[in-house]
């Protein structure tokens, strides 16, 4: 049997030009233009459109040098930029149809055997284009004890190159697409400060660094009414792009609900009813992220801590559904021996079977296995989807530096002793190990679907640094 090593190759050429101009050392302009040609967009039938050009413009104005500001302000700068970035991606061979070899059949008969591809290529693949506008300000004040850098941006990404999932009655399971227009609007803030600083050297000092970022992702235009970007493992969980939605919107089968949002139960079994169609479950992209780093220095000791967190996103946990079905989680304990009445409503039907209203659920579900399956199991993507909000105590360390005076006679410059810990604590509504997960799928990070992750590890250690 022959083996078939997978070969992959791409090439690009670019031409880049830049012009810098300054006026009186406080007003700067930078103009650039770039033209790229990438092989990933070429195909045997069309070779002329592999090139694309993109310009950028940056303006910055150092306010503190241009005008006289109050003495408390040490440095102030304003900036604005426009940029256009294009890319043909780094994945080759997405423009021409080909048959894949089936080496297993080589020994059969004479000759090589092939099968049609399952992913449709895009012969007229276009480069991705991102046009973004950004304004920002940077300031240092109070003898540089407080500073911030703030930036607001808006970017439109057009023709993102993605693989979407299509129904197999088309003959294929996926296709390469140029996905419409997506708008990202966001704000990034970084602040640093020294709230406490003793006058004399070696005294107490407290430094703090805060970063905050928020981003909103909105689909302005898409080539189809909805495009399935990824499918999850169970419950028809999928990431679906729709106009007005976001690239991270998760859909899946979920609870049938009454108009006031209560879960509807099945009067025969007492189990939750699950929708036939997929419903919106949540967005898998966090709205915001925040991190706070503190450092305290006193004499030869230094203590630093890092906390960070994110909020506003959901994820589906495969591990949770699986462990629920196997009865391995505490949430499945209630009702094991005497059954359980699910918290929700029953439909009130008229003679013709139409729903006329709802009443409180009073049916005892005795098949507890099936009950929890309906609530959080394989068919119900909503049941095992949870908020991925978290606050993490990411890092802490204490260092002690031995005073140089003691070291001189040993010809040592510096000795630092430290102990540290990483991933110390997680506070999160996420029921499984870690709300930060990412499953690699080809070259993409599969956001939103946790598929049996390993627990992340807490690291503790000590180190000794000797400098001669």
């Amino acid at each position, binding site marked *: 049997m022959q083996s078939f090593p997978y070969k992959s190759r791409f090439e690009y050429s670019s031409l880049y030009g830049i012009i810098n101009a300054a006026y009186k050392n406080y007003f700067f302009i930078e103009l650039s233009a770039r033209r790229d040609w990438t092989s990933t967009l070429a195909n045997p039938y069309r070779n002329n459109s592999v090139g694309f050009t993109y310009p950028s413009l940056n303006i910055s104005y150092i306010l503190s040098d241009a005008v006289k500001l109050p003495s408390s302000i040490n440095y102030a700068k304003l900036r604005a930029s426009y940029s256009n970035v294009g890319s043909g991606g780094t994945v080759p061979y997405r423009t021409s149809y080909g048959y894949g070899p089936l080496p297993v059949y080589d020994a059969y008969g004479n000759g090589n055997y092939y099968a*049609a591809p399952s992913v449709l290529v895009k012969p007229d693949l276009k480069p991705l284009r991102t046009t973004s506008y950004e304004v920002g300000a940077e300031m240092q004040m109070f003898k540089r004890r407080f500073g911030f850098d703030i930036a607001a941006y808006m970017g439109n990404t057009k023709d993102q190159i993605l693989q979407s999932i299509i129904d197999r009655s088309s*003959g294929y399971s996926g296709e390469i697409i140029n996905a419409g227009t997506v708008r990202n609007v966001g704000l990034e803030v970084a602040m640093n400060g020294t709230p406490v600083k003793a006058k004399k050297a070696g005294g107490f000092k407290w430094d703090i660094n805060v970063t905050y970022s928020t981003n909103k992702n909105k689909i302005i235009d898409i080539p189809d009414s909805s495009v399935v970007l990824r499918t999850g493992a169970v419950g028809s969980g999928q990431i679906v792009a729709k106009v007005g939605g976001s690239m991270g919107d998760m859909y899946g089968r979920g609870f049938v609900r009454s108009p006031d949002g209560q879960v509807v139960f099945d009067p025969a079994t007492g189990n939750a009813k699950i929708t036939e169609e997929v419903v919106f479950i949540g967005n898998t992209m966090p709205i915001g992220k925040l991190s706070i780093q503190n450092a305290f220095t006193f004499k030869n000791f230094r203590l630093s801590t890092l906390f960070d967190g994110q909020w506003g996103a959901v994820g589906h946990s495969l591990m949770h559904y699986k462990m629920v079905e196997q009865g391995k989680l505490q949430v499945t304990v209630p009702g094991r021996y005497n059954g359980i009445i699910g918290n929700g409503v029953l439909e009130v039907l008229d003679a013709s079977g139409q729903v006329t209203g709802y009443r409180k659920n009073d049916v005892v579900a005795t098949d507890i296995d099936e009950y929890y399956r309906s609530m959080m199991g394989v*068919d119900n993507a909503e049941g095992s989807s949870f908020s991925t909000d978290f606050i993490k105590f990411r890092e802490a360390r204490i260092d002690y530096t031995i005073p140089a005076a003691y070291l001189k006679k040993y010809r040592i410059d510096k000795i630092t002793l430290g102990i540290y810990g990483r991933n110390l604590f997680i506070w999160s509504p996420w029921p499984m190990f870690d709300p930060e997960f990412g499953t690699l799928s080809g070259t993409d990070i599969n956001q939103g679907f946790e598929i049996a992750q390993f627990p992340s590890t807490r690291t503790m250690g000590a180190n000794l640094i000797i400098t001669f």
Partner: protein
Amino acid sequence: MIKNILLGTLLLAFMLQSCTKRYDEINTNPNLVPEVSPEQLFAPALASILDINMSRNRTFNNELMQVTVNIGDGDGKVFRYDIRTTWGTQPWNNLYLELTNLKNIYSIADTSSRYKNDSYKGVSLILQSWVYSILTDTYGDIPYSESNLGRLEDGANRRPKFDKQKDIYMAIYDSLEIANSILAQSTDAITSNSDPVFKGDVAKWRKFGNSLYLRLLLRLSGKSEVSATVISKFQNIVNNPVQYPIISDNNESAILRWSGSAVAAEPMSSPFNNVRVQDFRSPGLGEFFIGNLRNWNSPLIQTNAPHGTNSINRWGIAQGSNAWSGVPSGYAPGQDVTKSSYFLAAIRIHQTRLPLPEPICKRNRLPAKC
């Protein structure tokens, strides 16, 4: 000065432009081939379709048909007709992809200047009819007229419309009619090495197509709107063996013989090689199935020659603790049942059969000629 810079830039741009000429070559996938011959798609497509059907048969159909009983009191047991929605996707997701291979065989044999071949066209139509019939029998209305047209050259249809089952059956009859007339005239050869079923015998493929036609006609013979035309077509076929040759003896059966190798990674090895021995033996046989074989004293379960080989009967069924007996399919949860007879794992490497009627005519008391 500025003039020179501009000139230099233009020259550079021109040079870069010219080196992009070979980009189409760089972006041609060396791992794939752009063009194949029909025979290169044929054997793997056939083997995959059987793989899909046999796997489905083992896990699902056998349970439904009371052949096997996967003993247990848990939920979602098919033999209790507790069928989860997840069972629905397997034939759809796999067979439609194989239809792409079958349709590509047709289009290559139809339009390629190098590989024009009428016999592959006819055989492709027969196999497409067979696969579509499995799909529509499973799901009812399905995409047919617009299915498998996702490729840009085919119209880029990613959302084929659903056709009525009745229309699909009529269209299948048309394809089988066309297949019969194509194969009647075709002088093109089917490479014997690439054909695991008939070793390139086009006449046998034609017979298979017509026998399949009979079977599919039989399916609608009880539908009042079409029964008259369907029955007359049936008679037309069986009364005109020259125009519609059909399978007439066992040597003409459509059988794909697996290589017999127990290694899953070998070509044409049974898909059941992917099932562990203990898993393959795990479901007990249903009492309905094994009990009838026992009561009728069927030669299929006799272990001695000429019916059996090496003390194993034709169907590779082991006796088990209670001799030839099985588990009542659909037994109530909690009821105490004992597994007795089961399928030996040796059957994994045996042959499989394309679904063909044996003595259709006898069973349905049709005209004497057949």
